[in-house]
């Protein structure tokens, strides 16, 4: 189970301000803090804080300052592929591109880029029309992403399918469809593509966010989830990820399993 720390995102005020002021400290603070919490990867997203024309330079800067304090590999999160490419050029370790929907123009841009920079790639089960409601159409999109990986020569383990979870308070019927999608995506190829979710979406503007997040995480892992972009500093959430590893027999039990999961 890969934990991708979500916190370095311009949507958060402190990161937004840091990006505007070119102050590396908040980014570096969260890089270290998320690693301590148990993150294996760090998501890097400028959000709307940076005007479009400055994004390329911003991603290069973000990657550089984060790598000054952390050895963790990065997940470059943007819809601006030139910005992602600028980031990839300065990444010291193989990164993950976040993300590519099922749109031919974007597939043609992003898949070769993943190969060129030895990066993983998050593929979204959606197209221009948006996110499908049911598992069937999500899986159909996943199949197109699997076919694209095959066509461009991306290793199946480097393709992360994101079946796109929506907030439970406004799109409740999506959650079971996402779980079913996770199950079916695992049957699309051998070896199977990996799967990922932007976990915190499930609880947007809902009550008891942490409880909803960790309950859904356990359900999703049990359905075939391999990675989650999530709050790496929610200790109870990380505990759930560790416990799922044990209950699915992916890691050998020891009394100190919670500590071992974070120590790796």
């Amino acid at each position, binding site marked *: 189970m890969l934990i991708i720390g979500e916190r370095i995102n311009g949507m958060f005020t402190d990161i937004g301000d840091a990006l505007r002021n070119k102050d590396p400290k908040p980014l570096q603070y969260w890089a270290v803090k998320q690693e301590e919490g148990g993150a294996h990867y760090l998501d890097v997203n400028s959000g709307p804080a940076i005007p479009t024309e400055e994004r390329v330079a911003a991603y290069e800067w973000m990657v550089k300052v984060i790598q000054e304090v952390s050895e963790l590999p990065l997940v470059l999160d943007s819809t601006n592929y030139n910005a992602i490419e600028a980031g990839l050029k300065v990444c010291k370790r193989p990164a993950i591109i976040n993300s590519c929907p099922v749109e031919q123009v974007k597939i043609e841009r992003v898949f070769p880029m993943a190969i060129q920079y030895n990066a993983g790639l998050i593929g979204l089960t959606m197209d221009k029309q948006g996110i499908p409601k049911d598992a069937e159409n999500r899986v159909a999109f996943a199949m197109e992403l699997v076919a694209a990986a095959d066509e461009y020569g991306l290793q199946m383990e480097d393709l992360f399918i994101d079946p796109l979870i929506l907030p439970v308070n406004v799109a409740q019927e999506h959650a079971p469809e996402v779980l079913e999608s996770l199950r079916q995506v695992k049957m699309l190829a051998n070896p199977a593509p990996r799967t990922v979710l932007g976990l915190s979406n499930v609880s947007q503007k809902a009550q008891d966010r942490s409880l909803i997040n960790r309950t859904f995480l356990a359900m999703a892992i049990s359905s075939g989830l391999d990675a989650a972009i999530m709050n790496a500093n929610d200790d109870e959430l990380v505990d759930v990820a560790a416990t799922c590893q044990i209950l699915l027999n992916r890691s*050998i039990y*020891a*009394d*100190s399993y919670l500590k071992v999961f974070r120590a790796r």
Partner: protein
Amino acid sequence: MSVTLVKERYASKVGEVVLGATPEQGGTRTATVTVGGDSALPFLHFEGQMPNRPVIAMEVTDIVPAWQELITRQIGDVLNDPAAWAKKCVDEFGADLIFLKFDGADPEGENRSPEDCARIVREVLAAVGVPLIVEGCDDPAKNNEVMTAIAEAAAGENLLIGFAEQDNYKSIVAAAMVHKHTLIARSPLDINICKQLNILINEMGLPLNKIIIDPTVAGLGFGIEYVYSIMERARLGALANDKMLSMPMICNIGSEANRCKEAYVSAEEYPGWGDLADRSVLWEAVTASGVLQVGASILVMRNPAAVRLVRKNIADLMSE
């Protein structure tokens, strides 16, 4: 139709552990022995490296052992002299290491003093140049006293000392750390306890490359399949990057195999089992070659004839 060889890709490998120390390293051994380092399942040379072959340690006890005559006859008149016995194991039987066991320290038996044990360790160190594995007796409290004295007397030699258990590990871990030895972590055929014990030892500050796992082997016909599957699982864990299971493993073959009735009962008593001379050697050799297939790095053996067979088996398996 072409055939593609299926090769597994592993995330990690078994850690390497060095036993013994040469004069430059603060000891008196003529050479060190390195075990572990495997990056694939045992002897699958086509998909990974096995940089160090498994080694054989021969068992020497501080008192004349009550072993069957088929074995003691081969060892001869050195049984009452641990230093001479150890030398014979190295010079004549080709032992890679000496496993020195202090049965005589047992309070129920001879109750040998810790100082006396330490003296014998020094004598054996003087007699042979190979690294030593030293275990005390089976009484936990006495074992702690004995091993503390031995660890101090042989400081710098990087002995492999045994053994730490889940209920009794602190004093021997401290002894290993202070006097720079490597430690055997023994668990009772239980991979969860095995992993937890390694965590506890490591938390005291002993590095992972100073620990050897003893999964508690069982003899052929008496539960060997339990240790076989546990060792296989530990190896798969190590290759999948489980750092707390990535230590090389030691198997106490000699004592377990020779406890089995099949290894010592005569053909007169059990005609169906055939000649004891062959059966006895093979019982120990087959137990050893069984655990070699699941990643044993150090085999502790007793019978010189069985050692010869297993050494040949290792040489064959190591030739690619």
